[in-house]
């Protein structure tokens, strides 16, 4: 019982698709939800059957409902699912995150009894009608935040996007003003929009700098390239990805990583609903690959990567090669004592650095 494990559950349904989203999701049709939850329970049985040792030796301290749009689902079903997980895994006071779309959250959640989670991540994107219109979204962010207060939810994360056509420093400030006015918003994610119609890089950069400075004044500390949190409110689950720890995932297109084994469920809803638990990816990683992926994920964190920790796990040659590249790119990455981490410039040009660090 000494290793922690994160659990991710992918809810592959949306009311409508957003034009910039790359995640696997389908428009919800009648009758699919029951079938899907039935399949999910079977997958939980199937995976726990196949990973008995893992289950015995680890404790689950984070559960994350992502999507798609998990808030489309009535809370009762998700509560049942947690009960199911409890029967199979050692749950250890887990952080439970619900990813929510403001509109469906307001529709499907009624009172405090519905709150089975302890962290709510609201995909608000923006508070400006014109900007949301460009993304074919509706403006329910403010209402959802007020409702979260009413429900007594104490740990809320808000997602905002940068680079939406029509966005400017004034509208961005307005969005940040609203977010930071809610004392239960403990963390904020600020992602540049990835779409063909995004504003030019120069503007996006200006927005990024502005957001960082604004949030830092309000006590939100940047702990990852795009994530800011108040002290003690770092997302436990996401840290598992970035610190390259183990996570087991359920649902179509969901990726898992256990030790050197990475696998991904087929991105096909029909197959999944019919309980064909096929994989579209099933990789046993080499030492070099694990090393690279660990660096690729770990550099995203401002805390950086501990050299002494790498030394416990990896061959000296692999580490030396990495360090020699890092020394060459001293503008992008700094070594301070036992730790190396990205500089401000390094945050902007992380890909250039990673390409150099890739194994051949």
């Amino acid at each position, binding site marked *: 019982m000494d290793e922690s494990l994160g659990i991710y559950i992918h809810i592959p349904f949306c009311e409508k698709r957003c034009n910039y989203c790359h995640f696997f999701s389908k428009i919800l049709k009648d009758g699919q939800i029951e079938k899907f939850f039935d399949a999910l329970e079977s997958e939980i049985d199937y995976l726990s059957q196949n990973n008995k040792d893992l289950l015995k030796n680890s404790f689950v301290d984070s559960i994350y409902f992502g999507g798609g749009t998990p808030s489309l689902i009535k809370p009762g079903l998700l509560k049942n699912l947690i009960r199911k997980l409890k029967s199979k895994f050692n749950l250890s006071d887990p952080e439970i995150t619900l990813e929510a779309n403001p509109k469906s959250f307001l529709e499907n959640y009624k009172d405090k009894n519905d709150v089975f989670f302890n962290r709510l991540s609201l995909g608000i994107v923006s508070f400006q009608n014109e900007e949301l219109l460009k993304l074919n979204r509706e403006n329910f962010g403010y209402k959802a935040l007020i409702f979260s207060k009413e429900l007594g939810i104490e740990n809320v994360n808000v997602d905002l996007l940068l680079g939406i056509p029509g966005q400017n420093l004034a509208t961005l400030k307005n969005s940040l003003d609203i977010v930071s006015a809610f004392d239960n918003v403990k963390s904020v994610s600020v*992602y540049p929009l990835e779409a063909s119609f995004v504003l030019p*890089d*120069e503007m996006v950069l200006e927005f990024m700098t502005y957001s960082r400075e604004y949030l830092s004044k309000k006590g939100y500390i940047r702990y990852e390239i795009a994530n800011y949190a108040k002290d003690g409110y770092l997302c436990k689950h996401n840290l598992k990805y970035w610190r390259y720890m183990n996570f087991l*995932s359920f649902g179509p297109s969901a990726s898992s990583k256990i030790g050197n084994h990475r696998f991904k469920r087929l991105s096909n809803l029909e197959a999944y609903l019919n309980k064909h638990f096929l994989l579209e990816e099933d*990789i046993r990683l080499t030492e070099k690959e694990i090393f690279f992926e660990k660096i690729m994920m770990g550099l995203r964190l401002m805390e950086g990567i501990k050299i002494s920790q790498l030394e416990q796990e990896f061959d000296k040659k692999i580490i030396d090669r990495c360090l020699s590249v890092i020394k060459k790119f001293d503008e992008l990455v700094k070594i301070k004592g036992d730790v190396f981490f990205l500089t401000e410039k390094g945050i902007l040009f992380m890909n250039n650095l990673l390409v150099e660090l890739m194994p051949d």
Partner: protein
Amino acid sequence: MDNIRNFSIIAHVDHGKSTLADKILIKSKIVNERKLVPQMLDNMDIERERGITIKARAVRLDINWNGKDYILNLIDTPGHVDFSYEVSRSLAACEGAILLVDATQGIEAQTLAHGLLAIDQNLILIPVINKVDLPTADVERTKKEIIDVFGFSEEEIILASAKEGKGIDEIISAVIERIPAPKGDIGEPLSALIFDSHYDSYRGVVVYVRIFEGEVRSGMNIKLHSTGRTFEVQEVGFFRIEPEKANFLRAGEVGYIAANIKNIEDARVGDTIEEEKRPAKKILKGFKPPLSMVFCGLYPINTDEYNILKDAIMKLKLNDASLVFEPETSAALGFGFRCGFLGMLHMEVTIERLKREFGIDLIITPPSVVFEAVKSNKEIVKIHNPLKMPDPGTIISLREPYVKVSIFSPSEYIGAIMELCSNKRGNYIDMEYLDTKRVIIRFEMPLSEIILDFFSLLKTKTKGYASLDYDFIGYRESDLVRLDILVNKEKVDALSSIVHRSKAQEIGSKIVSSLKRLIPRHMFEIPIQAAVGSKILARENIAAMKKNVLQKCYGGDITRKRKLLEKQKEGKKKMKMLGDVQIPQEVFFEILKNSSTS
């Protein structure tokens, strides 16, 4: 000897030469249609794809005509301007030639040039108009052109459609009736003309010859006149579709000699072969060592592949006496070779073969002609590489090669051609009307202007109707400067070129702007400059990239992230690092082309 006919086919690219050759082959006893690969005379895939015959080949055909057996030796000739010397040697091996003209196109520049060459050498020409059955054929006009230009009578012209097999019998009949049998004396000392060769890993260099006097047989000791080197003949024979051994080759015949010649440079096209002990009475005229007109640097992208490139060039060299090369180093590109070619087509075909047959990723530096520097002590130095241009203080003058260009075109494009040629520093010589609609315009022009993009510009400006032939006429003094290109303040030696002073500004600006377009953005701003000496003529900046990071982490989907990075890495592999700047490989070759067409 009475029953031998040695002939070749003179035609412009695409006028149907290979198809006609195939049809004549079918009439002989050695091939039937089922065995025939279309265009059998073209041996290499690249030739077949490009529809041009690069290396001459000779085929011996046995034909029974009106009850009598004949031997027809068909000597194929290259159709491109780069190989006009090889054409002249092939023609020298013949008594006659078929002059093949496409009825939809009329006479083209090379057809005229080669036709006149044949007349100079007293060959009998048989005019044939091909593709007469095509709807766009203009037989009457083509006839008139042939009559006006070459002075044939209408009755001499044969109408044919090689593709349909029409006119083939008439052509064979004309070859037999009109072309004289070769003359020569078997008893005289051996005198044989080399008109081609190829390398065979078992027999060494196999030399293609036309015997003019005497005979050659295996065991004989022969001497190559220009080098004085001697060899013992191992085998003689002739080509049907495959080589066929014979006891001897005699005056009038065409065939091959294998004599353990290891180096193809010893078997030079145009040279005379004689018997060591009995020197030839008549050395054959017209021998010229191959003249490299165009040079460029070839570098492997992956520096580990230097030795593979070296082996590959040497293998091509075995079969190509006109390919010259020597090792070269570039600060920008590392180790490579400076290679010399007869012309642009020769260069392009060679490069294509290196890439295709040997799988080498190459960087090709901009092609350059050979300049000459006259030093203060009157010594003349050849400059094969712009970087080797001597310090201006140590030289009296610089010279560049000039060519006489003949352009055939419909008369409506005269203005456009005149303008193009003057832009390319051409000096007008004269103009001649072939008929009311077609003209031939002649210019003297620096070769350096032609090798860049002249041909494609000419095609564009004349909607593809003009054709071109040129001849080297000598070196002329010229006001030349070396144009250097600086990327991120560092001179890129592989991009230096020698240009006329009046063009330096224009070419410099265009190179700089195409580099701006071709080099991707970096983390830092990159200045690009063109300079002559310390004087900057043009400058552009490539603005710095603002960011390059995958902001959104797709949950646990690490593979997606890795794939995006791998794509970026693949792209980077195809780049050449110059200092801190990544330059796409095609930049080096495309830069000058783009510079004058944009």
